[in-house]
């Protein structure tokens, strides 16, 4: 089941996520929309295309797509199927997880700067600014969970969480919101970024990959989509009930996956994007909620703050 799940995450989930979000948005807008399987076609099309590489770039530019895909692939291996062990697990694996994504981001940003384009420099600056708020919030959340359970591996943390005291419901709820905001921020969705715009001056993620074409662009897209799925998997682990078997975990993940895809689509349909200068405030919400969860744990576990 673990293998099956991992294959599902690699081969189906990233495409399905984008396909579902786009379909739901199209239906909301009163259009029929592209078929849900369109992202597969798009990626296959890109893989079969030739590439144009700017003469101003160096090896950094070429290196970023494979490293991004490799990092995303590794991140998937570290995240367990709900209530199961991950394929790779060891104490402190969540630190490796966070820095795997960090490495991918570093390469993405470095490659964007490598092109020398002023747009891509601006996109890189925005990406790094916002990531520097997302990352600490993520660590505070995981640190809180580790504190609750006393474990330091993803699967152990999430398993023990269910057998802990009642106040963990509060921690779980706060964690759910934190991870949902992380899904929007890391997945470059509204209200942080706009995946559909053609206006370079307003982009964050899209502008950093403007110079890529063909297979390299396909890699960049794939890595970005896979990253969103990884965040969803984490969320599924956090909220999954105990006592479900591997098949139950898979089923639970799938249901949550569809719900989240529609939630993202709902956010994108119903609200405008934030002003760029207001985005940090929105992401700081993650930090605030994660710290609240931390304080809750301190209070209930140690009786004092």
């Amino acid at each position, binding site marked *: 089941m673990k293998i099956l799940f991992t294959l599902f995450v690699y081969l189906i989930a990233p495409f399905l996520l984008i396909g579902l979000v786009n379909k739901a948005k199209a239906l909301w807008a009163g259009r029929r929309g592209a078929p849900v399987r369109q992202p597969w076609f798009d990626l296959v099309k890109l893989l079969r295309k030739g590439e144009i590489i700017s003469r101003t770039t160096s090896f950094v530019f070429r290196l970023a797509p494979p490293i991004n895909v490799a990092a995303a692939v590794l991140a998937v291996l570290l995240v367990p199927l709900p209530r199961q062990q991950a394929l790779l697990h060891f104490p402190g694996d969540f630190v490796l997880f966070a820095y795997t994504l960090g490495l991918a981001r570093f390469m993405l940003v470095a490659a964007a700067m490598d092109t020398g384009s002023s747009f891509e420099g601006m996109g890189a600056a925005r990406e790094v600014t916002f990531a520097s708020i997302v990352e600490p919030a993520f660590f505070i959340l995981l640190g809180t969970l580790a504190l609750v359970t006393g474990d330091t591996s993803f699967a152990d943390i999430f398993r023990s969480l269910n057998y802990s005291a009642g106040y963990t419901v509060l921690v779980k709820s706060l964690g759910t919101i934190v991870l949902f905001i992380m899904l929007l921020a890391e997945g470059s969705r509204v209200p942080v970024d706009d995946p559909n715009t053609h206006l*370079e001056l307003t982009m964050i993620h899209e502008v950093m990959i403007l110079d890529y074409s063909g297979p390299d662009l396909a890699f960049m897209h794939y890595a970005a989509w896979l990253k969103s799925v990884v965040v969803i998997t984490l969320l599924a682990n956090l909220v999954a009930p105990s006592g479900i078997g591997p098949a139950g975990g898979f089923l639970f993940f799938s249901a949550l996956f569809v719900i989240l895809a529609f939630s993202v689509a709902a956010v994108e349909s119903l609200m405008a994007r934030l002003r760029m200068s207001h985005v940090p405030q929105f992401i700081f919400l993650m930090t605030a909620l994660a710290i609240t969860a931390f304080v809750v744990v301190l209070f209930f576990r140690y009786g004092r703050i």
Partner: protein
Amino acid sequence: MKWLKIINVQPVALADIPLIDIHDFRAGMIHRMHSGLRLVQFFAHPQEDTTVTLFAVLADDGQASLYVAGAKVARGADYPAVTPNVPAAHVFEREIYEQSGLLPQGHPWLKPVRKGIAGIDPSEMPYEFFRMNGDEVHEVGVGPIHAGVIEPGHFRFSCTGETVHHLEIELGFQHRGLEALMIRNQHPLYQMKLAETIAGDTVIGHGTAFVNAMEALGGVRCPRRAEQIRVIALELERVGVHLGDLSALSGDVAYLTGQSVFGAMRTQAINTSMVISGSRFGRGLLTPGGVRFDISGAMKRDILSTVDELQDKTELAAEVLFTSSSVLSRFERTGIISEATARNIGLVGPAGRASGIPIDVRADFPFGAYASFPVHAFSLKSGDVFARAYLRYVEIIQSLRIIREQVETLGDGPVSVNTGPIKGGQFVVSLCEGWRGEIAHTVITGRDGRCARYKIKDPSFNNWFGLALAVRMEGISDFPLCNKSFNLSYCGFDL
């Protein structure tokens, strides 16, 4: 020195226009503009001898009157620039220098308007950008080729971080030489086609200004029914473009609901133009002497039901759009142009009205059927993206009301009359309120009864500088939103 007082779309003999000394001309112009008149047109008309005549047309919006005067200057000479005293003249004087070689002495921003750009004529003066110095200043250049289906234009931002300190807009990439083409081939059909292409999204606006001028020069009056059909077409154009703008404004802030709902309504509006003339943009409808397509009884019912439906839907969609807090937080206090700035640089149309300048040619200088009913020039004070968006909504509702009234009261009779030859030695100013603002066509005819000068001014000519000022100290990521809130024409500027 007395300037000649004239009325919109009423020709006067060229000989009646006072030709005064350039210094008196300049002083009179500055004096009049400082006492509240507005610059409508200011251009050079090269004569057959070795002189150039400068003409200026000033508008007294409250009195429905225009003031015109001319000044003779030797070709290749220079004259003291008006711009230092009247900033609104800056782009007109740049154009004068480019078209006639008269150097406006003391002009602070003497850059090419169209020529010398994009290799049209490299021997012309090169374009030099304003530069900001400093370690933290970075420049971002966008265009002239853009992503998406957008006309060409180059935008250069000087920023510190995300904040824009200065935006310089270089246009001229689509210069076609329209004013010269209007003179070269004077077949009315050819001129009509050219007028329709001055700005592709203002077919009826520029077309109306052209046919009004030609009818005035030919001494014919277009039948009442045709005048009404022209009003219906012009207002339909306004409704269509404004709806499209509201859709695009929603799209720029990633507000999917507004983008799709207004986008769908725009199609309904421009399809109504197609019902009348066979073209969604109204091409081929206007002709000197009338219109080429009549509105039948069945068409009337069609238009009325569409208008009712559009009104209901627009009110509903606007309520959703303008009460959405996420949208308002993007629109409000973004890209502000104060009233003082707007008056200084001479903003016209919805952009000017959003900054508190209640001018509207339909209200101030009524032409055609507009003379028979009142039009209120709406204005707002805040001068931000919200004001420019909300004003569009208000104007859509106003235009739908006008269309309904005109369709219901459509008179009987023919829709066109024959036009005679145009009179020689005349000067006519034809103003029309297109959806973007004041369109001005000035025609001077020679003694042989042919056009000697056809001067075109699209509202974009006044307003592009407003966009440059609107984004100052804004985030660079808000530029597309500010840009769309003005929605200016590139080809209408480039001519």
